[in-house]
């Protein structure tokens, strides 16, 4: 009896959460994201970066791999800054204050925008944390990289170099 019940519950639960919204694909133009506010409280304007290769990085303080990626991203950004590369980090912490404190202790050189309500990752359909969207000089999403591991560094470098070379 009990077993039966458990089984029913399991089935019910397994069926939930399978609906999937539309997805942003590689090759599409990167959407706008005005609900993310920059450090100075201005709406994030991605069109301002047209002509540059941009990496949009969704991160949060509660995400270990995100934190781990930041020193690497910072180095990468400074390395290629002169070549027209920029990283825009969009923080999705519900409590922006926590993110600001974290950045105070572990500063990064690239611009960080804050989107505590999460509209922006919704628009980008972020599927994992962290997620990196590589946008070419024309504003198209060329590559979506999910997650971060130290072993991913080579691949990320290669994509940036290729996009910069275009």
């Amino acid at each position: 009896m009990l077993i039966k019940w458990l089984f029913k519950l399991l089935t019910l639960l397994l069926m939930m959460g399978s609906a999937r919204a539309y997805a942003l694909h590689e090759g599409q133009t990167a959407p706008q994201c005005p609900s993310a506010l920059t450090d100075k409280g201005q709406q994030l304007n991605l069109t301002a970066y047209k002509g540059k290769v941009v990496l949009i990085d969704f991160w949060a303080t509660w995400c270990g791999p995100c934190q781990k990626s930041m020193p690497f991203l910072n180095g990468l950004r400074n390395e290629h800054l002169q070549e027209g590369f920029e990283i825009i980090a969009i923080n999705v912490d519900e409590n922006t204050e926590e993110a600001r404190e974290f950045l105070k202790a572990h500063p990064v050189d690239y611009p960080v925008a804050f989107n505590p309500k999460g509209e922006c990752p919704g628009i980008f359909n972020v599927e994992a944390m962290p997620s990196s969207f590589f946008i070419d000089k024309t504003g198209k999403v060329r590559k979506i990289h999910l997650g971060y591991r130290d072993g991913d560094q080579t691949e990320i470098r290669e994509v940036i170099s290729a996009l910069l070379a275009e």
Partner: protein
Amino acid sequence: MVVAVIKMEKGKALAALTAAALSLPGLDASAATPVTRAEANFQYGHYQESDKRMKVQVYHTDTLIPLTDRLEFSFSYDRDTYSGASPAYSLPEVMTISGDPGAWWAANGATAIDGWQRNKPDPDPFEKYPQNIDPSGLDWNELGFYKADAISSASQVSATGLTGGSLEQYAVWNELNVLNSEDREARIAAYRTMLNVPLPNNAPIKQVFQNQPLETRTQPTLGLKYYFDNTTLGISGGISDEPDYLSNFGSVNLSQELNNKMTTVSVGYGATSNSIWRNTSHSHAPVLKATNALPHIHPSDCTATATVCAPGSALDGSSLFNAFNLGFSQVLSKTTLLNASASYTNQSGYLSNPYKAVYVRGEITPEEYVTISEAAFLGNKQFDWNSITQLQIVGPELFREIRPDHRNQLSLGTGLIQHITLLDASAHLDYRFYSDDWQVNSHTFEFKWFQPLPYGIMAAPSVRYYSQSQAEFFAPYFLAPRVDGHYSSDFRLSAFGSLNGGITLSKEFAKGVNIEAGIEYYTHQGGLKMGGGGSGDYADYSSYLAHGGLNIDLSASGLFGGGSGHEHHHQHMHHGSQPPAGVMYGHMMPKANDVMAGYRYMYGSQGGNMLHGSQSVSDQTVNALGCPGYTSAGEKGCLVRPASMTMGMHMFDLMYAPTDWLNLMVMPQLMDMEMTMSSDLRKASYSVNGNTELHLSTDLQSPYSGMQHNVFDLGDTLATVLIKLYDDPNHHVHVGIGGSAPTGSVSEIHGQTAGIVYPNPIPVLQDIGMQPGSGTWDFKSSATYTGQMNDIYWGAQFNATVRLQDKNKSGYALGDVFQSTSWLGYNLFSWLSASVRGQYTDQGKIIGQMVQYSKAGELSGETQQAHNTSSTVDYEVNYGGQYWDVGLGLNATVTGGDFTGHTFGFEWLQPVKDNVNGYQLTRDGALSATWSYMF
């Protein structure tokens, strides 16, 4: 990424005397993604039951290291020591001495016992003894009753600890009084009187306790976890080792994330293989002709004789557990997590508890008792134990418990975790249903609340309610034999409920250090069983658990490394390189607000010949001169000498620099010591009164022969202020002023507290060298000079330990210690240096004497503890001396990667010359190993 947190079944048939029963985990990590930083945990727990029952000290350390992005390594190490008393069995209270024994015996028509009801003040308690008994050879307890050795000392469990009281006394009396009459019928009738005492309905139940010798359990566990993209594979394995129980366990866990990581399904399998045996502490021939006691009924002795003995006498058991787990968890919302799990375990093999007994009436008839006693007393009867009973006899009506050799266990659990956004709190609600084919069903409800408070403090109160039904073969006592032959009176198989409540406070400090402390209270009551019907209140007890823990992020400053944070480490390492590992107080932190955590392990071993002054001496000399004044029943001199001794000190080093010229340092210590005695150096004494070196006249060696004892406990705590006096690029001078607080015990006892040597089961103090503390407040000072030029460095130190009291609570004070040392080192590479060092130590004589046992004092409650005097280590004159050593050392500093800034040191200290006071064991050498990390 999700971690498989499948815990393996715990199971411990023994769990016997030990609260330190195993929980054999898989991996206990709770992270849901691979850890990105290495971490280390330390934990201490102190568990104490009411009424001086079981006490357990738990030491735990573990480390979690990410080897790669996907591979995680974990190691944990548990060390528990347990001691105290544990219920052995229960029986109707009327069958024990309670209140006025005379009244009881009178009420039960046993007037002939009159002569045995003596209280101590009786001027001549022996006048009514049977004529053929030497009354001086009897062993009296406080009520003036003789304590029979009813349960064998074949286990290390104290013989006297298990005697039930009047039942045995009656048996002794019966045998002594009636045996000579040659009237078998009279003896049978006397047994019948004893065994058939009428029991009123609902007779009160009384528990009988036995002492748990101080024992240690060690459990290392290794684990590896590999993270695929949505799948995690974990394996782990380990050993749990205690003197009478050895477990090997391993597990495999697999978890799979589904549904955009909203759902996790996990499966696991674990196997545990156990070996169980009962300690034997002495080796004597079977006693067939008892002189003054109930015949020794321990069947294990019988195997060596012509007498056919009871089956399964010597315990060499094993068991195997196979556990299967299924887990399921579902993220229900941004703030809700649901989980459900099921586990099935199959246990087979020896599942009984080798130290528990049961009272069974009617298993052996009065006629059979007389047959047994005749065989034992007269030594002239052959008989077959099997025809009398299949149970192992412990005493009159007392047997070892027997449980079925199979057990199938099923447990179903579910839990809900809810974040309460308004309070930023989290609530955990858990329920578990458990059922097994021993007919134990249980329900567990648990509620935990995690409340963040200001200043980075987290408060976590929790409540747990548990209720179980009893095992089919459980009863407090059995008034008739059971058909299936299964019996247990273990209170853990009774019907009861328990409530547990507690709170844990933790605080996160900057720089990756988290400290937590908490306390829990537990109450076990028959009346708390859900729906009533508990097994009564005779076994009720309560306990508390106090615990404290420390979590260190080993790469706290390494994460955002490569920056400015590390340069001072390198610089600092070259500035007056680390002194050799064996030198304490030799290093100061040069910058204000620096914090350093360190661990120092010092290991010393002694063995081989005995020394007197600087000369090796023979065992004959040791026997003649090593134990001044010692005699036992006509035998003179040391009975044994130490054969080997090892001492390990674990020191935890926390250092803080409020200014650049002053460092504060605190060092708690843990001591781990083991000593093994030689075989008897001479004939061991024996006399019938039992207050001698042999347990029985037929023993081949004394209990001290080859005796091994160990201590694992907190040591003294050192606190020191280091003050910089002079500092230039090449020379540095500092002094240390501080002390040592007597947090270490000076009253560690031997496991063996039996009445072999002492009339009553009183704790017997281990010798001075095995006490983990000094017992006194000590003043500690040091002066250190270090210098360096290019790649060469050198240094010298003088340090002193002066006792501020002349007596600790065990009656003595250790001698003062003065030590001087100097060293020379060379930086081989930027990360590695080597050193050579000389050291001279002068350790003074002990003042005072360790408390000695006095029977008069013990009876009047003045002395609680005794102290052996049969070996050199028991004499204060055999401590202290002058020692010369040469040390060879290596220091290494990690200069790159995640562990940048960690330093390691090793040093071997080779004794060159000893000049010891009295008679002491030769030193083999000492190893020091250090780790330190500056935040």
